[in-house]
Every structure is written in C-alpha cells, then in structure tokens.
C-alpha cells in the first residue's frame, strides 16, 4: 500500500474521488473483483483524514464520497437490517462495479493509444495529388419565366397608353346649366336629387349627382342659390336667391 504522505502530495493528480479510490484499490494488488471494500474504505477515509490534518483544501466531491463510504462501512459492519434497501452488500458490489468499469476504460484507452496510429506508426501518402470535384452549375429557367420577364420589362419601360372606357357622365357645364335652369322655375326649397334627370342609369345618376352638387356650390358662390342641410349626409336643399 502506498504511504498516505505520497498520496497527499499527489492530490492534484487525482481526477476525482473515484480515480483516487481506483488507485487505492489497485494498490491491493489483486483482481478488482477480489478487493476488500472495507479495507478500501478505510484507506480512503484515512487519506481524507490526513489531508484534513494538513489543512489541505479538499474538493466537495471528495468529502461527499467520504461521507458515503463512512455510511457504507457502518452498514457493512453493523448487524444487517433487512428493512434497509439497497443492502450494504449491494452498495459495495456497485462500488466495485464502478471501479471495474473505470479501470476497464482506462485499460482500453491505453490499448487504443498504443495501436499503430496514423501519423505516428503508419503514414498516409505524404503528398497526395488530391481529388478534385469540378462543380458545374446547371442553370435552370423555364420558357414561362422568359416570357413573363419580357412582359415585365415591357410593362416597366414602354410608354403606357391608358385607355379609359367611355362611360355616361354629366359634365360640370351641363350640370350648371341644368341646375340654374331648374332652380329658377321653383320658389320653394327643393332637394338636390330632384334636379337629376329621370330614368338615368345608376352610373349616370352618380355622375349627375356629383356634378350637380359641384354646380350647386358654384351657384351658391355666385350668390344665385342658397343651400340648406340639417346635418351631415342629411338631404341637401336648394332654392333660388332673388
């Protein structure tokens, strides 16, 4: 068994409590399957005690492991309580399995590193010519894309002629004539719609209404009619001013 002093000096070298436990277990110089868990626990606790005596800062996980091992030790020594699950023997077995597992990975890690490795033992070609992949772009476009593009360009750059469809409209001049004439023939207030031609199509009525309204405003500005409306959107009345 290694002297505790040596271990203390080496503390920085341990990769955690399991690593330390494995080193202690290996020092029993037997197959890991036959190690004495109790002896191992004693060695670990002794090591931790030693470290504390010389006031070495111990990482928390070392102390956690110490607490767990102390618990395991008492379980192994005291008369068995069948109520406690898992049994201390189970726990000891698992600890041993963990140590075996880590030990196995350490072994095969070393065996891996010792294999004939590229760049150390075996070598690839020193100056390979290299394989080249020539990327060739396969351009894609459909005939529709082409035609649509030309339509787009033409739309964008050609002088555009706007053709307005011939629609039935009443011009402002016609409305002025008509409203001036009709308002002169009555004395009472008359609603503006009564100045519109009868039997006109819907579209023509709209045009006539808009033009007649403008005509009414113009005639009012000229002081020839007066207008009256109770509220917004209420009927609009006209009568001639004399």
């Amino acid at each position, binding site marked *: 068994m290694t002297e505790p002093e040596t271990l203390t000096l080496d503390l920085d070298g341990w990769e955690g409590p399991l690593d330390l436990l494995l080193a202690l277990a290996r020092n029993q110089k037997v197959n890991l399957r036959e190690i004495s868990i109790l002896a191992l626990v004693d060695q670990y606790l002794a090591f931790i005690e030693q470290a504390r005596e010389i006031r070495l800062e111990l990482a928390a996980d070392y102390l956690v492991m110490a607490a767990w091992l102390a618990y395991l030790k008492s379980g192994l020594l005291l008369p068995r309580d069948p109520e406690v699950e898992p049994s201390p023997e189970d726990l000891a077995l698992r600890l041993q399995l963990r140590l075996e597992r880590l030990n196995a990975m350490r072994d095969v890690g070393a065996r891996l590193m010792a294999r004939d490795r590229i760049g150390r033992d075996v070598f690839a070609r020193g100056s390979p*010519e290299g394989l080249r*992949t020539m*990327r060739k772009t396969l351009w894609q476009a459909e005939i529709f894309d082409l035609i649509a593009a030309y339509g787009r*360009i033409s739309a964008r750059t050609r002088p555009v002629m706007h053709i307005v469809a011939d629609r039935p409209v009443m011009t402002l001049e016609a409305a002025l004539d008509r409203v001036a004439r009709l308002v002169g023939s009555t004395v009472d207030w008359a609603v503006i719609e009564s100045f519109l031609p009868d039997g006109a199509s819907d579209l023509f009525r709209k045009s006539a209404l808009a033009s007649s309204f403008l005509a009414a405003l113009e005639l009012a500005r000229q002081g020839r009619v007066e207008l009256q409306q109770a509220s917004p959107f209420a009927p609009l009345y006209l009568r001639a001013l004399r």
Partner: protein
Amino acid sequence: MTAPDPLVRAVEAILFAATEPLTADAIRAHVGEGANVRAALDRLAADYAGRGVELVRRGDRWHFQTAADMAHLLRRDREEPRRLSRAGTETLAIVAYHEPVTRAEIEAIRGVQISKGTIDVLMEAGWVRPAGRREVPGRPLLYATTPAFLAHFGLASRRDLPGLEDLRAAGLLDPLDLALEMQADTNEVVKRSEQD
C-alpha cells in the same frame, strides 16, 4: 506482386510517406548507410511499371505519382442545378427578343444596368454567345442566342417566341392596370344585371 525484400519495402514506405521527392542519399539516411538504395529504387520502378501509380525520377530525386493516363479520373464533375436570377432571366429575354443586341441596348431596354456577371452566366449556361460587333464608334460587342437556347426552351426558332400582342392577351403586359380595369367593368355588369 511478389513480396519484396525488406530494403525495397522500406524504400517504398519512405517514398510513399515523403512530402517531397527524395534523393537516394535522403532515403539512405532513413534505411542506414551501406544500403543499396539504387538497386531498391530500380526494383520498385519495375514493380510499379504499368500500374496506376508509378515511381518516377526527376533529376536526382524520386517520388511516386499517379500514372499520367489516370489524370482524368482524379477529377469528377458534379452538376448543381441553380435557378437563373431575375436579372439573368430578363437579360436573356431581351437578347432573345432583340438579338443581336449590345450590352448598352440591353441596359436601355431593361432600364437597369446589368453586371458583367449576368451575361457571363448566360454564356456559361450556353444560351448566349457573342455575335460580332456593331459597326459604330466603339464597336460594341453584340450578343445573340444559341441553338442550345432554342433547345432548352423547346423553341423551333425565335419566331416561336410570343409577340407583344400575345403577351398582352396573356395578361403579361402591364398586368396590374389591366386587371384593375377589368375588375371595374365586371362590377358594373353585375350591378346592371341586378337592376334588370
């Protein structure tokens, strides 16, 4: 291959792993003084004669290289489909409808400058080719479409391209205005028929 002797194997491994051609002396530094490196090199050269890899001598240095007649196999072409950009499509359309055209004319028709790469892409695709020069000051290069262009777009000739009237009928010309106007007309018809 017949199994070579240890020295030949050593020289073979050394030359294979070397990052540059080696002189016989440099090889000897690895295998030990007194070794008959020249004999080993001759044996190797004979072993590899006619294979895909050859031992060659350049001046007083030796190295392995792949056989010259295998060079074409070390390259591999890979085709990557890629959609033509909007600028590319428009430029191609202008060349197709107006060929032969100069770059300046293409820009005038597009109303936008085109980058050098745009025509390059069309030439790379094999759809556009240079077609002489226009005999005006500066003698600008002319561009025209290729037979491959017709083949790709399934056209027997450029005359198969739809004309402006066809485009207009298909709603591809000034499509926004037309669509709105048509909608207005439709609405009116609906109202009228409702009144009837």
